[in-house]
């Protein structure tokens, strides 16, 4: 893919010499100079030395040369960046820009200047665009009742109604939590996809001859090129799950960090999530003796890297943990409420086998099956994303029929699918067809009591079709 790097030429010592680099003097002061550019790349990285540029002017100039601004990586390196760190950073951004797969009109969220003055109304506003998420309703599990994005969103931008999620772009200050918490990867923010993060992390690590640290930073904060570290910008660091931090280590980063913006006025307020994700990652590394294995020279990442698996995808978190366990030859178990993986338990004395948990489970970690008059609920820990939707849907939750523990346990992950509960199914006395799980019918009988024993008897012995017969 044809990718250009537009660099402000005002600080010649920071102009990188590489193919595709176009130095433009005065670009920081006047981004519209891009309009005169004769190259017409499909993707671009813009390197500036000042953060005082006008984003809407830059985006306007990019559109004039037919580049989608939402896919453009802008790097503000200040005036005293480290040139080698800068080259590495730029290489990462080039790969990230190339992994951008385009945006739809719905992804652009205009951001108007905060200053509201009468003078400001002398001319129409020129809002900058930021990238906002959108839902792919064809893969969204809301139809089964999933509300994971509603639970994750700190700004109430998502609402669930009648099996469909609605999204309010006005309410959303994109933080990305919906993206990493969606069990079916139905929500995508085109400026921060799993593929883009994967491409950037791999590129910056490959571009460095020395040990390099990866630092995830909030896009609202400043990003710089610092010796020994490379920065990966995300909408908000509270979107980062522990598996992203571990993925960076597995891919070869010598250390990894998620840095909250520290802005007291931040509407997202996700610092505690960053801390918890870091704690999980740290606990995993400690239990696996990861550091010792690295020092011993084991190439932990080789097999994973060769496979080309995207370790940043939510669906691959379990595989990442198992790979880590295999590579270090250890088993580990880390518990946290915000864990990306979970373990479901069912109390067979209170579960009625109604199957609601399996119906709502967006990843099919829970599955209901019926065979030879026996109904069963099974569970695959590798598929569970700790979304707790099963608990929300269970009609017997008050009696503790189901519980989810936020737990990364490699032994449980390796177990594969296991049975959690099973029971017989009542059959119709007349036609022989299945009516419902016996445990469910018993529960209905208990709720209705003696007073309705005839009704209960009829419900237990007749299917819907045969209830009117003799």
């Amino acid at each position, binding site marked *: 893919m044809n990718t250009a790097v537009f660099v402000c030429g005002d600080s010649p010592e920071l102009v990188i010499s590489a193919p595709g680099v176009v130095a433009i003097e005065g670009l920081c002061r006047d981004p519209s100079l891009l309009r005169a550019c004769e190259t017409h790349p499909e993707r671009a990285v813009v390197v500036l030395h000042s953060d005082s540029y006008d984003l809407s002017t830059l985006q306007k100039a990019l559109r004039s040369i037919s580049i989608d601004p939402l896919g453009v990586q802008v790097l503000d390196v200040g005036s005293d960046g480290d040139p080698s760190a800068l080259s590495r950073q730029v290489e990462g951004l080039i790969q990230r820009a190339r992994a951008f797969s385009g945006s739809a009109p*719905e992804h652009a969220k205009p951001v108007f200047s905060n200053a509201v003055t009468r003078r*400001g109304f002398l001319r129409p506003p020129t809002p900058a665009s930021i990238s906002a998420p959108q839902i792919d309703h064809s893969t969204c599990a809301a139809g089964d009742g999933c509300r994971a994005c509603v639970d994750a969103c700190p700004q109430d931008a998502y609402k669930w109604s009648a099996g469909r999620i609605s999204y309010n772009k006005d309410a959303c200050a994109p933080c990305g939590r919906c993206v990493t918490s969606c069990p079916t990867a139905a929500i995508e923010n085109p400026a921060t996809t799993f593929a883009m993060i994967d491409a950037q992390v791999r590129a910056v690590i490959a571009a460095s001859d020395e040990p390099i640290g990866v630092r995830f930073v909030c896009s609202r904060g400043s990003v710089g090129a610092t010796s020994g570290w490379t920065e990966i910008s995300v909408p908000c660091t509270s979107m980062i799950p522990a598996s992203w931090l571990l993925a960076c280590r597995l891919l070869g980063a010598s250390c990894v960090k998620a840095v909250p913006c520290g802005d007291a006025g931040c509407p997202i307020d996700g610092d505690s999530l960053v801390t918890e994700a870091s704690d999980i990652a740290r606990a995993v590394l400690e239990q696996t003796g990861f550091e010792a294995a690295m020092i011993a020279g084991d190439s932990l990442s080789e097999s994973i890297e060769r496979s080309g698996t995207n370790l940043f995808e939510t669906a691959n978190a379990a595989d990442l943990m198992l790979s880590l366990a295999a590579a270090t030859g250890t088993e580990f178990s880390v518990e946290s409420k915000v864990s990306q993986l979970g373990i479901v338990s069912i109390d067979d004395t209170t579960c009625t086998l109604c199957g609601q948990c399996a119906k709502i489970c967006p990843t099919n970690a829970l599955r209901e099956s019926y065979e030879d008059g026996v109904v069963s609920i099974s569970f695959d820990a590798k598929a569970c994303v700790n979304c707790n939707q099963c608990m929300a849907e269970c009609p017997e939750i008050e009696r503790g029929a189901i519980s989810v523990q936020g737990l990364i346990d490699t032994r449980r992950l390796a177990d594969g699918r296991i049975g959690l509960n099973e029971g017989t199914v009542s059959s119709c006395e007349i036609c022989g067809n299945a009516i419902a799980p016996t445990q469910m019918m018993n529960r209905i009988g208990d709720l209705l009591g003696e007073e309705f024993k005839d009704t209960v008897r009829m419900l237990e012995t007749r299917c819907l079709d045969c209830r009117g017969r003799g």
Partner: protein
Amino acid sequence: MTEWVDEARARQGLYRFIGAALLPPERGRLELLVAASAILQEYDFDKSPYSIAWRNFVVVLESDVSPEDLAIEYVRLFGVGFSGTPAMPTESNYRAPNRDGAVAAFTASLQAEFRSMGLVSVGGGEAPDHISTELEVMSYLCGVEAESWESGQETLAMDTIGIESRFVRQHLAVWIPMFTSLVLAARPAPFYERASELVHGLVIHENDYLAGIVDRSSEL
């Protein structure tokens, strides 16, 4: 206020332009579209995310499009065939409940809305809820807005932006994305592919942009 006037006039022209592009193709109309695009290109649409779609459409328009081929494609996409219509270009098809009389009731309420804007249907053209009619209504509103700015009636201009915003939010932005996704799914000829991308980008941006202006004006 010159820039407000210019912007309103450009939007007036763009709505009329894309509305006309989605009418049944005729040689004369295509020639007018080419001439209109040359005028519209004088305006800088690059501040809006749909500007790339706009340029892409102009490229197709200027590529010597055959009216006969377009007419065949128009009928395939928007006409009623044995297997239905790939993409109905009327709002009621997406919004009216599926029961007898619902389309008529929907259209009547839309016409009442048009009357409240000072527009009366004289018949003979496309249906009131046809995409071209609704885009033409937006063009009319932008024209009213431009005249208000020109005559120094800023409050009236802002009120008109409020009406535009409401009309886009309640109508265009609701059904046009569904319509354009159907058009694109039908693998249309480049002319209708690019036109769909443009009208989709336009209404989504206008929905956000006009709402943003209305919000800001209420803070003053």
